[in-house]
């Protein structure tokens, strides 16, 4: 995954949102990232530290919430958590007609500003 590109996307969006609020400083950015995106948090923090310099997010902490994968079976409504390889089949009824609920998130939840 492109942690540098993702960090850049986070920074841009955070600054845009902060400017709308006439903020002078961003203290923290909260993001939710699904495990199926295979984003490595360590690499993301490294990229964040490098990119935030010289911006209003210079000292901003990046709070990452990693979300596990879960799906819902459209046949029996059973919801279940799973990994990469065992999500396609409902463990309750065996149906393959399932929908992914969580696991692919790549979003900014909120920013903390002054």
């Amino acid at each position, binding site marked *: *995954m*492109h942690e540098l590109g*993702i960090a850049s*996307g*986070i920074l*841009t*969006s*955070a600054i845009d*949102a*902060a400017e709308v*609020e006439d903020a002078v400083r961003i203290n923290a950015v909260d*993001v939710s990232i699904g495990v*199926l*995106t*295979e984003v490595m948090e360590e690499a993301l923090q490294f990229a964040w530290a490098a990119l935030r310099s010289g911006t209003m997010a210079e000292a901003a902490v990046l709070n990452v919430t990693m979300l596990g994968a879960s799906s819902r079976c459209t046949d029996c409504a059973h919801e279940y958590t799973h990994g*990469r*390889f*065992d999500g*396609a*089949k409902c463990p309750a009824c065996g149906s*393959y007609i399932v929908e992914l609920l969580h696991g692919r998130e*790549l*979003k*900014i*939840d*909120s*920013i*903390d*500003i*002054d």
Partner: protein
Amino acid sequence: MKVDVERQILAANDVLATENRARFADAGVFVLDLMASPGAGKTSTILATIDALCDRYSIAVVEGDIASKVDAEKVRAHGIPAVQINTGGACHLESAMVRRAVETLDLVALDLVIIENVGNLVCPSDFDLGENAKVMILSVPEGHDKPLKYPNIFQVSEAVILNKYDTLGVFDFDEAQFRAVVGSLNPSAPVFPLSATKGDGVQAWAEWLAARIESARGDAS
């Protein structure tokens, strides 16, 4: 103070992808994003697909490579319009690049645009280009364990082409294992074993693509 943002991180790419998608739909053109490792047979598969479908559909190709015009030239030599994107280092195509590339194509006159993504089993799977469908190619010499190692590209693809099928006897490729793992990742994706250069199996793949094109037209009307 805390401010809720609730915004997608890859918003910039996704916004343009959505615009691309609307533009393609308005023009009535089906767009396929074809992904695979370097050398797996993307260009060969495109040429074979053109041979199978050019009587029925008006086709153009968007080629994505880090450098060179090799692939666009091959497609043009085959009598089909081709636009070459050189990413200059980016390992995957993004929606902005595709938007610029299609400026030179008469989308309304076209039925099918095939985008040949940069050779890479990792990054292209993460980027929406505004396509109707993503399809990936795995070639027999690459090995049957690739779905275990690169699960995402198999998961986001609507179909999986198993190319260089004619080399099965030369390599230690366990097709049953390959199909089982692909099935665990993506049970609805058909697997098309074929040889793009020899032609075996191409018809089944081409018919699937034609059915997808017709289905998209049906959805649009």
